């Protein structure tokens, strides 16, 4: 896991639900390559095409509320977004995204502090968020050791695979 991420901000509002992140009609898709094409299709059909690799998504409260569909986290994980910073996250989405190795940063008040198109840097471990000129914009809640451990392994799957492998020997 890269600790320091620099990217351009794309902004969304509050209560961005899983139907907006990944509409139900695409749930039968199973490959990440297909799934990522429909990321945020409930916000706008062509959203996937607007994301450039390394962009950072900034959203309001309760991001990912709604369904347990892991497709929502998968779509975002493979969309090009390096991380998501939100004022708060819904719990199943939070688990799903961390499990897939997508850094989620909780930062109350962030929506009012960054602009669409602005370049920011996020330090995952400390939660420090800085502007292009180095000025500190905000300090996010630090991730728990439990979540950091999962992210450092690139997600829960590699972590569990390693554990399973160990037990087998």
């Amino acid at each position, binding site marked *: 896991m890269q600790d320091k991420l620099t990217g351009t901000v794309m902004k969304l509002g509050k209560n961005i639900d899983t139907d907006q992140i990944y509409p139900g009609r695409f749930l039968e898709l*199973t490959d990440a390559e297909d799934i990522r094409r429909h990321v945020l299709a409930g916000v706008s059909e062509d959203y996937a095409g607007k994301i450039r690799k390394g962009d950072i998504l900034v959203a309001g409260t309760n991001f990912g509320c709604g369904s347990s569909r892991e497709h929502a986290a998968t779509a975002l994980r493979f969309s090009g977004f390096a991380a998501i910073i939100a004022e708060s996250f819904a719990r199943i989405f939070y688990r799903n995204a961390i499990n897939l190795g997508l850094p989620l940063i909780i930062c109350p008040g962030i929506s009012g502090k960054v602009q669409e198109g602005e370049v920011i840097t996020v330090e995952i471990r400390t939660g420090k968020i800085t502007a292009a000129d180095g000025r500190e914009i905000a300090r996010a809640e630090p991730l728990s050791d439990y979540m950091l451990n999962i992210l450092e392994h690139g997600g829960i799957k590699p972590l*569990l695979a390693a554990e*399973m492998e160990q037990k087998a020997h």
Partner: protein
Amino acid sequence: MHALEKILAKKAGKASVTTGEIVDCEIDLAGVNDLYLQTVRSFAEIGATQVRAPERMIMFLDHYAPASTVGQADNQKKFREFCRLQGVSQVMDINEGVCHQVAADRGLVGPGKLIIITDSHSTTHGALGAFGTGVGATDMATILATGRLWLRVPEVIRIRLDGTLKRGVYAKDVILHVIGSLGADYAVYKAVEFIGPVVAGFSVSERMALCNMTTEMGAKTAYIQPDDVTMAYVREHTKVPYEVVETDPDFTYAEELSFDVSGIGPQVAAPSSVDNVHPIGEYAGVKIDQAYIGSCTGGRLEDLTIAAGILKNRKIAPTTRLIVVPATKKVLLDGMAAGVIPTLIEAGATLVTPSCAACLGTHEGILAPGEVCITATNRNFPGRMGSRDASLFLGSPATVAASALEGAIADPTPYLA
């Protein structure tokens, strides 16, 4: 400790747990639904080969029942193969219905159980004193591989419901009122417990609707302390061992709220968020194209019976269609035996076989751009039931039935016998 904490402590093999602690719990019932073939994929990706406890896994082919595209059919086929290969005998195929109600109907839910299903509305099981919560596919793969999952011990918010409900006001109206007051993210990561005379007066069906909808305020789980009503249901239905646990008198809640719901009338959540709740009067007369009764929220026998009471010897408006989806096979059969289903069909309802159907916008009644629907389901997010340019109102089954009659959003009270 709270009863919910005692459940987690027991499943983690610990004497006690504290709020915020992360515990590794053995899962009593692990339910997988047909939307998430990723469960099987993640299972393989983590290097697992055998389901740790096939007798504690249950497969629900409910969201795509029956399949309407080749892709859906293929996902269901792969799930059936996985279960056959893994010796999972509890396969609830497309003839069974919606996971949460199927689990209750089949007696798999009881007090003290830790139930995890790949469905966000697993909070429903708190109505029977269980700890129910939803997870995604990869978490479920972990459970299948190890029999266990890490859970954070949640803070508990206690909501007291006081007063006497007016005619025409049901559990769905009460929970919409609560969500409207508190907001869609009020209980994120937390557990919600309901107490008070209104809860005591609710049937198990209404309690399930109440607990089910706590998902829409972000709750991790919901809980109602088992009482005589619960135990009468449990003695009749529950077929697995269970244990009633109780909260210690000195337990400190994260918050204690109370609502006097005597004054409220029927409520609707207007487009497009569940906390956009208003008294029905503010939207009465808004024309609707579709009315929908069904799902794990509003598709139980009591819901259909209330709707049939309103629609008996009447016809729905010619400009409106009414879709009725009994939650399970049992609801359908009981509804047929009681004459409820024929009444609904004679009034003009379109009957869909038990499943999640259009609740999540995959099939069986999705909406065109510009259409308006009032539904007894749980979410009115943009695009939830089809087109992003359709509008969804949430209400009780009674409100939906009355609205189908008038072809416009309507208060059910005048139609009650």
